C-alpha cells in the first residue's frame, strides 16, 4: 500500500482533494447545495438551450445549470463538485507540468483550486465559473500542444484567432484567463520583440472581441469582461473572482520557474502547509451566520421541524428569519403556544418577518403564510422571492409553491402553464405530471390532504388588503372562518404575546376552547396565572385549568421579580423561559411592529 501511495502519490493527493470536497458538501454544507439548486430551474428543451447559448459564456452556464440540478440530491451534488475540483487541480498540474514545473512542486498545484474553494464560500458564486475555468485550462493545454508541435507563429496565431471568440462565446470571460496564460507563456518562452508584439496582438484581439460583442448585447461592458453568469449579483465583479482568474492564468508559469530540488521533506512541508492553510482558509471563508440561515431554510424545505428545534436549542436563533423558522417549526409540532418562550423571541417579527426585497427571507415567510392558509400572501412572497433572484433565473421550489397556491385558489390556467414548464425539468416532472392530472378535478383537489385543508382554511368571503400592522385581525378572520385552524389560533395568541398586548390577548385566548387542546398551552397558562395574581392573593382560587409545575414556576418567577427585578437569576433557566420574563424584562416587542409601507410604484 505504501509503495502504491508512493508511486501514485500525486493521484492520491488529487483524489484526496476530490473526496474532501465531496465530504465537505455532502455533510456539513449540504444545505448550500439545496440553496444553489433552488435558485435555478434547468429545463430540457431547445428554447432553454438557445436562451443560454445566445450569450457569452452560454455553454458553461448551460452545463453548470445542468449539473446544479443534481444538487437536488445532495450526494450527487457533492460528487459533482468533488469531480470538478479534482479535474481543476489535475488540469492545473498538467498545464504546469507542460510548462516545465518540477514534480517537487506538485502540491502547489492545489493552491488555485483551494482559492476557488474559498471563493465559493460566497454563496453567490455560480458553478459556471468553475466550469469555465476548466474550459480555460483545457484550451491552455491545447495551446501548449500547438506550440510544442508546430514551428513559427502561424499555427498558434490561427489557434488564437479561432479559439478566442469560441472560448469567449461558449465559456465567457475566462477567455481572459486563457489569453493571460498565453501572454505569460509566450513571454517566458521567447522574449523577442516580435514575440512580444504577437502576444500583444493576441491580448488586444481578445479585448476587442469582447468589446465588439458589447455592441450587440444589452449588458454593461464590465459584465462582459467579468463574466455574465459567474456571479449571481450583476452589480459588480468580486475581487476574489479576479484574483482566482489571475491565479489560474499565472500559476503554471510561476511553478515552471521554480528551481528543481530533490527533497522529500520539501514535498511533505508543502503538503502540510497547503493542507493547514487550505483547511483554515476554507473554514474562514464560509460565514457561519450566513450558512446558519441557509441551513434553516434547507430544514424548512425538508419539513425537518425537529432538527430545526434541536438546532435552535444548540445555538439560539436570533435573526428575524431564523426566529420565524423556529416558531414555524414549533407550530408544526403544535407546540408554539407551549414552548414559545423557551426560545429567543424578537417581537412579532419572529412570527412574520418584514418583507425584504431579496430571494432568501421571503421563502420561509411564504411557508408560514401557506401553512396558515393565507394563500395569496404565500404566493406573493414566493413570487417576489423568485423575481428577486438577481440573475433572473426561476426556481423549481418556488414555482412549485406558486403552483400549489394557484391550484388551491382554483386558477388552473396559470397552474397548468407553470406545470408545463416543470414537466421539462429533471426532478419536478413527476410532481408536475401528478398535479396536471389533478387539475380541474375538484374532488381530487379537495381530497388532497394539504390542498383540501388549506382550501378550508383560506379566506373565502371577507376580502381585506394585507397590512402587517393588523396581522391579528387577519389571523382572527382566518380563525373565525375555520375554527380548526389551530396554527392560526397559536399565531394569533403568540402575536399578541410578542406584541405585549395583554388586553387583546385576554380578548382572544378564550377562542382556544374551540381548538382541539387537551390542556391550556404553557405560555398561556403563565400569563393567566400572572394576570390572576395581580389582583388576587390566593393561587388556589385560579379559575383556569393550570398545572402545578407551571403554577409554581410562575409564582417563583413573580416572587423573585417582586423582590428584585434586576436579579441575575431571572436570566437563568427556568425563569428566563417564563412568559413573564419576556413581558417584564425582555426589550423585544417594546416597539410595536411598524406598519409596512404601501408599495410605491412610481
Amino acid at each position, binding site marked *: 500500500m505504501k509503495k502504491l501511495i508512493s508511486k501514485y502519490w500525486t493521484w492520491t493527493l488529487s483524489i484526496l482533494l476530490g473526496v474532501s470536497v465531496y465530504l465537505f458538501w455532502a455533510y456539513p454544507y449540504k444545505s448550500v447545495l439545496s440553496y444553489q439548486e433552488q435558485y435555478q430551474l434547468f429545463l*430540457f*428543451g431547445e*428554447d432553454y438551450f438557445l436562451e443560454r447559448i445566445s450569450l457569452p459564456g452560454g455553454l458553461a452556464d448551460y452545463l453548470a445549470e445542468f449539473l446544479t440540478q443534481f444538487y437536488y440530491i445532495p450526494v450527487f451534488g457533492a460528487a459533482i463538485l468533488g469531480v470538478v475540483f479534482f479535474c481543476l487541480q489535475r488540469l492545473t498540474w498538467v498545464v504546469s507540468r507542460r510548462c516545465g514545473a518540477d514534480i517537487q512542486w506538485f502540491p502547489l498545484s492545489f493552491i488555485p483550486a483551494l482559492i476557488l474553494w474559498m471563493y465559493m464560500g460566497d454563496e453567490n458564486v455560480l458553478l459556471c465559473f468553475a466550469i469555465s475555468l476548466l474550459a480555460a485550462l483545457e484550451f491552455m493545454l491545447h495551446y501548449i500542444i500547438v506550440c510544442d508541435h508546430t514551428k513559427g507563429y502561424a499555427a498558434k496565431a490561427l489557434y488564437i484567432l479561432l479559439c478566442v471568440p469560441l472560448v469567449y462565446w461558449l465559456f465567457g470571460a475566462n477567455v481572459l484567463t486563457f489569453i493571460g496564460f498565453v501572454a505569460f507563456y509566450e513571454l517566458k518562452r521567447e522574449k523577442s520583440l516580435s514575440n512580444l508584439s504577437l502576444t500583444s496582438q493576441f491580448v488586444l484581439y481578445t479585448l476587442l472581441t469582447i468589446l465588439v460583442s*458589447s*455592441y450587440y448585447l*444589452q*449588458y*454593461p461592458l464590465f459584465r462582459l469582461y467579468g463574466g455574465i453568469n459567474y456571479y449571481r449579483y*450583476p*452589480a459588480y465583479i468580486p475581487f476574489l473572482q479576479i484574483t482566482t482568474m489571475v491565479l489560474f492564468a499565472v500559476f503554471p508559469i510561476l511553478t515552471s520557474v521554480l528551481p528543481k530540488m530533490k527533497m522529500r521533506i520539501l514535498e511533505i512541508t508543502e503538503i502540510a502547509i497547503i493542507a493547514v492553510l487550505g483547511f483554515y482558509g476554507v473554514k474562514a471563508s464560509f460565514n457561519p451566520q450566513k450558512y446558519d440561515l441557509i441551513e434553516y431554510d434547507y430544514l424548512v424545505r425538508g419539513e425537518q421541524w425537529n432538527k430545526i428545534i434541536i438546532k435552535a436549542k444548540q445555538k439560539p436563533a436570533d435573526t428575524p428569519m431564523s426566529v420565524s423558522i423556529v416558531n414555524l417549526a414549533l407550530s408544526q409540532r403544535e407546540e408554539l403556544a407551549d414552548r414559545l418562550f423557551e426560545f429567543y423571541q424578537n417581537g412579532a417579527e419572529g412570527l412574520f418577518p418584514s*418583507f425584504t*426585497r431579496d430571494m432568501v427571507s421571503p421563502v420561509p415567510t411564504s411557508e408560514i403564510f401557506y401553512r396558515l392558509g*393565507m*394563500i*395569496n*400572501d404565500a404566493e*406573493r412572497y414566493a*413570487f*417576489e422571492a*423568485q*423575481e*428577486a*433572484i*438577481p440573475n*433572473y433565473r*426561476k426556481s423549481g421550489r418556488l414555482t412549485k409553491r406558486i403552483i400549489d397556491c394557484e391550484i*388551491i*385558489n*382554483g*386558477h388552473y*390556467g*396559470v397552474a*397548468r*402553464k407553470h406545470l*408545463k*414548464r416543470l*414537466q*421539462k*425539468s*429533471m426532478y419536478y*416532472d413527476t410532481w408536475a*405530471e401528478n398535479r396536471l392530472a389533478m387539475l380541474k378535478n375538484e374532488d381530487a383537489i379537495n381530497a388532497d390532504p394539504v390542498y383540501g385543508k388549506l382550501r378550508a382554511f*383560506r*379566506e*373565502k*368571503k*371577507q*376580502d*381585506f*388588503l*394585507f*397590512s402587517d400592522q393588523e396581522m391579528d385581525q*387577519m389571523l382572527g*378572520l382566518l380563525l373565525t372562518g375555520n375554527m380548526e385552524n389551530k396554527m392560526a389560533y397559536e399565531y394569533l395568541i403568540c402575536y399578541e404575546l410578542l406584541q405585549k398586548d395583554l388586553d387583546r390577548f385576554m380578548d382572544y385566548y378564550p377562542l382556544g376552547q374551540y381548538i382541539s387542546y387537551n390542556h391550556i398551552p404553557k405560555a398561556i397558562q403563565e400569563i393567566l396565572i400572572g394576570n390572576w395574581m395581580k389582583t388576587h392573593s390566593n393561587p388556589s382560587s385560579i379559575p383556569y385549568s393550570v398545572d402545578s409545575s407551571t403554577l409554581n414556576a410562575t409564582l417563583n418567577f413573580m416572587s423573585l421579580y417582586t423582590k428584585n427585578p434586576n436579579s441575575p437569576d431571572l436570566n437563568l433557566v427556568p425563569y428566563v423561559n417564563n412568559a413573564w420574563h419576556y413581558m417584564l424584562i425582555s426589550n423585544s416587542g417594546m416597539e410595536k411592529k411598524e406598519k409596512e409601507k*404601501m*408599495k*410605491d*410604484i*412610481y
Partner: protein
Amino acid sequence: MKNYLLNIVVLLAICSCTVSQPENAELVNEQPPIYPDYIGVTIPVEIAPLDFDYNGGEFEVMYVLAKGSKGGELSAGGTTIEFDIDDWHELTRKNQGGTISMTVYVKKDGKWKQYQDFNVFVSNYPLEEWGLTYRRIAPGYEVYGKLGLYQRDLSNFDETPIIENTSVAGACFNCHTSNRTNPDQFTFHVRGDHGATMVQQNGNREWLKARNDSLHGSMVYPYWHPSGKYCAYSTNQTHQSFHAVRGERIEVFDQASDVFVYDPNTHELLLNTLLMTPDHYETYPVFSPDGKTLYFCSSDAKPIPSEYKEIRYNICKIDFNAENGTYGEKIDTVFNASILGKSATHPRPSYDGKYIMFTLSDYGCFPIWHNEADNWILNLKTGEAKPMKEANSSQTDSWHNWNINSHWFVFTSRRGNGLYTRLYLAQIDDHGNISKPFLLPQKNPAAYYDALIDSYNTPDFTSRKVEFDSRSAAHEITSENRIPTIVK
C-alpha cells in the same frame, strides 16, 4: 422528462416526412379546436402568418389547406401549423377584402378527420404600421426581475429589444410612448436607483430628473401633442396593496395625482390649478387628434386605502392652446362613469377624431388587476358609449392603442389563463363595427405562449422600427446626468 424525450423522437419521426392532403378523411361536424382561436377573425394584409396548433387532445399530425376567396391557396402540415411567410403575405394580398377559408385535417389513432372549414377575413383597411412596441414583465407584485421594452415586426415574428434591464442592473422601464405611432419622438420612464424620464426626439435623448418639487411624484402616463411640441404627463403617488380572497390579487391606487403638460424644447412644465386640484385625482392625460383638447380622468379624492372601492374616475376635458401653451378655463365631463357606479380610465382618442376608447371597471385607476375590466368605446359625435362586446372577455381587457388610420387597435387581455396578459388586435370599420380580435401571431404559438412567463404591457403601434442606442442609453442612465424641469 421521459415524455419529453419521447416527444422529441416522435417529432423527429414526423418531421422526417412531409404531410400531404389526406384523402377520404372522415368529416366532423364541428369547427376545429385550435390555439389560438383564429376562427372568424379579421386580419390586415401582410400580417404575420396565423400559425396555429391543434387543441383537441392527442393527435399524430395535422394538415391545413388555406384557400383565398379571390384566388390562391396555401397548405401546411405537421404537429404545428407553420405557413411560409412570403406565401402567406401573397395570399393575404390577393384576398384583401375577401376571405381565406381554412380546411383543417387532423390524424388521430391512424385516421384522418376533416373539420368544418372556417374563415379568416382579410380587411380592406391597411394596417399602415411596421409593428408594435410593448413592455414585457412577469406579472408580479413589487419586485421585478428581467424586463424590457421590445418591438415586434407585425409582418413576421421578429421581436427585438429596445432596451432591457440587463443593461442597467435594477432599472425598470415603462410607458414607452411615441407620437401618433411615429418613433421620431418617444418617451419612457425609468424607475429604480437611476430614475429618470427619457425623451428622445429625432435621435437626441434627454434624461429628465424623475421628480420635480412642484409635482407629487415623477412623470408618468405620457401622451404626445400631435404637433410634437408638447407631451402631457400625469404625476402620481401610486401605491399597491394585496387582496386576501382568491379572485383578487393586487390593488393599485393613487393617493395623489395631477396632470400637466411638458414642453421638451424649454424643459418647462405647464401647470394649471384646474388640473392639480387637491380634492380630485387627475390622471391619464391624452390630447385630441387636433391638439385643441386635453382629455384626462378625474375622481373625487377619497381616503386611501379605507375607501379605495369608492374611487371612480370620469373622463373629462379641458381646452388646450398649442400656440402659447395655455389651458382653457373650465373642465367638462365627457363620460360620467361614476353615475354608472363605474370607473373609466385610460382614454385613447382615435386619430380620426371619431372615438375615445377607454377601460371601464368597478372602481379605481388601475383596471389591469380587475377581472371585470372591459374596454368601451365612446362615439364623440353622438356621445354614445358602449362596451366593445366583440373584443371583450370575461377576464381583464384593458390597455389599448389605435393604429394611425384608426381602423385597428391593440389591447391587452388576460383571457388566456387569467393572469398573463397577451396582445390582441382587432378591426373597427367605418360604421363602428368591431371584429373578433386575434391573438398576436407567433410561430408555434402554443409552445411559445406556454413558455413565455412575461406579461405584455402598454402596447402601441409603431410606424417603423424604433431606433434607440441602448448601449449609450445605459451609460446615460447610470451617469446620473439629469436635466431639471422647471415650472413655467
